[in-house]
């Protein structure tokens, strides 16, 4: 795999202060290249989710610059950011957020809803994505008929069905037992190997240790980034 030329996402001196005065991120800089698999670790309240939201354009920084595929988020309207999320960014959440009473196929197809593809194509691609996460045999199953690990696989399929430039996962294994958690992690690694940029938050140091790049946070700052070590060596 040749080294990519363009960072998929970049934070430059990004600060996020919530109303009420909590500074969740304090002048953080981070560059993630295409195809990277990055683990973000750190104690609770250290600003991991805040950073992920900024990386995914769900929120805007109080100061500093967020660049997604080289484009300055602060200069884009909410509409344009929405479109960017629809086409270039996939999210996976700890609580899955699957639509109850809707089959796996249509849950995944909804990942393409705001990208403009017609229903037939959405379903066809959703089937492909479900097969890729190993759930080709569960297309019609509704969330309550799936195990926690399977639900998270459906959510991952939904996040990647649009072939985003990056997949952002906030504690995707947080609600799973260790076995299904390991399965989900393996899946994310496979996706990264086939070229998807994956940034994932995890509480689990052991999981993080297995991943090629670790970013450690504390009190709104990055206290360790494997990329620094690489750069030095």
């Amino acid at each position, binding site marked *: 795999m040749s080294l990519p030329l363009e960072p998929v996402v970049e934070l430059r001196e990004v600060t996020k202060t919530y109303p009420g005065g909590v500074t969740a991120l304090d002048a953080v800089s981070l560059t993630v290249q295409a195809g990277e698999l990055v683990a973000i670790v750190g104690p609770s309240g250290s600003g991991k989710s805040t950073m992920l939201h900024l990386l995914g354009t769900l*929120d805007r920084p109080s100061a500093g610059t967020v660049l997604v*595929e080289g484009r300055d988020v602060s200069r884009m309207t*909410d509409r344009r950011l929405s479109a960017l999320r*629809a086409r270039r960014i996939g999210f996976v959440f700890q609580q899955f957020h699957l639509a109850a009473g809707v089959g796996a196929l249509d849950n995944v197809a*909804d990942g393409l809803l*705001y990208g403009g593809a*017609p229903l037939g194509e959405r379903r066809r691609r959703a089937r492909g994505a479900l097969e890729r996460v190993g759930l080709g045999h569960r297309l019609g199953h509704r969330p309550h008929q799936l195990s926690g690990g399977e639900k998270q696989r459906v959510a991952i399929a*939904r996040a990647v069905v*649009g072939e985003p430039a990056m997949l952002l996962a906030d504690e995707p294994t947080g609600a799973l037992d260790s076995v299904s958690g390991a399965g989900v992690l393996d899946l994310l690694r496979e996706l990264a190997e086939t070229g998807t940029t994956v940034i994932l938050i995890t509480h689990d140091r052991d999981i993080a240790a297995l991943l090629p790049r670790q970013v450690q946070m504390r009190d709104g700052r990055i206290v360790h980034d494997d990329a620094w070590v690489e750069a030095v060596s």
Partner: protein
Amino acid sequence: MRRPRGRRHAMSGAAQDGNAPVTGVPAGDRTGIGGRPSAGAPDDRDTPARLGPRDVLRVGAAGLRARPMRVFLSALGIAIGIAAMIGVVGISTSSRAQLQATLDRLGTNLLTVGPGRDMFGEDAQLPTASVGMVARMPDVESASATGKLSDAKVYRNDHIPAGESGGISVLAARLDLPRTVGLTMATGTWLNAGTARYPAVVLGAESAQRLGIATPNVQVWLGSQWFTVVGILDANELVPELDSAALVGWDAAASDLGFDGHPTTIYTRADKAAVERVRELLAATASPESPTEVEVSRPSDALAAESASNKAFTGLLLGLGGVALLVGGVGVANTMVISVLERRAEIGLRRSLGATRGQIRTQFLTESQLLAALGGIGGVALGIVVTAVFAVTQGWPTVVPPWAMAGGILATLLIGGVAGLYPAIRAARLAPTEALATP
């Protein structure tokens, strides 16, 4: 191998220009999963796709499908309001259709002339020659008359004490009365030149019922002698006064009951195109010497006026239906507000999937309108059933005007829009991170 910083800055500058391509990399090189190029040209990356109408409906309906009971109950509120209004409109339209059918059948060109009051407030009299004069008027197709015999009473037999006549009036009738008025026989025959001279009587439908007579050839005690019932008339809405009459021949009335020969009601059919003209001339023709002592009326007008007098009541019912609809609308608004509160996580998820604020707003507006429209469709159906049941029991045709149905559905779309507007705006304003933060 990293890109020199300067180059990157140049590119972020390009991004500021809006839609300019922002990467120096060919589109095909930006790898998504499986290395396929992303959908759409790079320029399209940040232009939101429009949801097609089918997708808008699908997304709106999906929200409803998840909560069928709540949807049913709040749609029911709307349905009751719409059904009330459709029912009121349907029933009054059906009743009007019935009236129209009656008028078409009975004709609107029947005019009646009766004596009014003279200048001393006494009952006036029509001249005996008045019927002939009316009959000879231009544009008059036919004329006939009855003469009231105030002193004569009719009884089932001769044992009943006088006074209990049951409200049946005894009238002398000219032979051409059925032809002019349009009377038909329920049973038996009308008077003829022969029976008109003898103690024979034809009963109005109501009179026959009061006397308990269903077949002819029965004797009734009339005046102070037995009369033979030769026929019974069908009821006639135009001339209800004949329903409760006992009709005897003009000659028999004169010879047996002391009839003075003065008609009390002249019935006349005018040419349809000349009804108003004839009506203006009738008083002067019937009573040339004292035309002011004559009352002319058009029975079909009285029928129409009776139905018009129901309008106030119809208005009241419509108002009640409107209140029910308003309450239904508040129910929908309530459901939508709760729905938005409960579905913050879904809203956040959709925003993360790329929904714009506008698309979230549209989703909840559509949902609200679908909810109301469901109630509207149900209400229209219910209103039709109510109308049909009522009309059938009244023996009317069932008529629900299409404008009422279309108006009902349109009204619900409007109600849904108004009720859903505030919740939809709230949903759209929700910040994605805030929405996702709720468990």
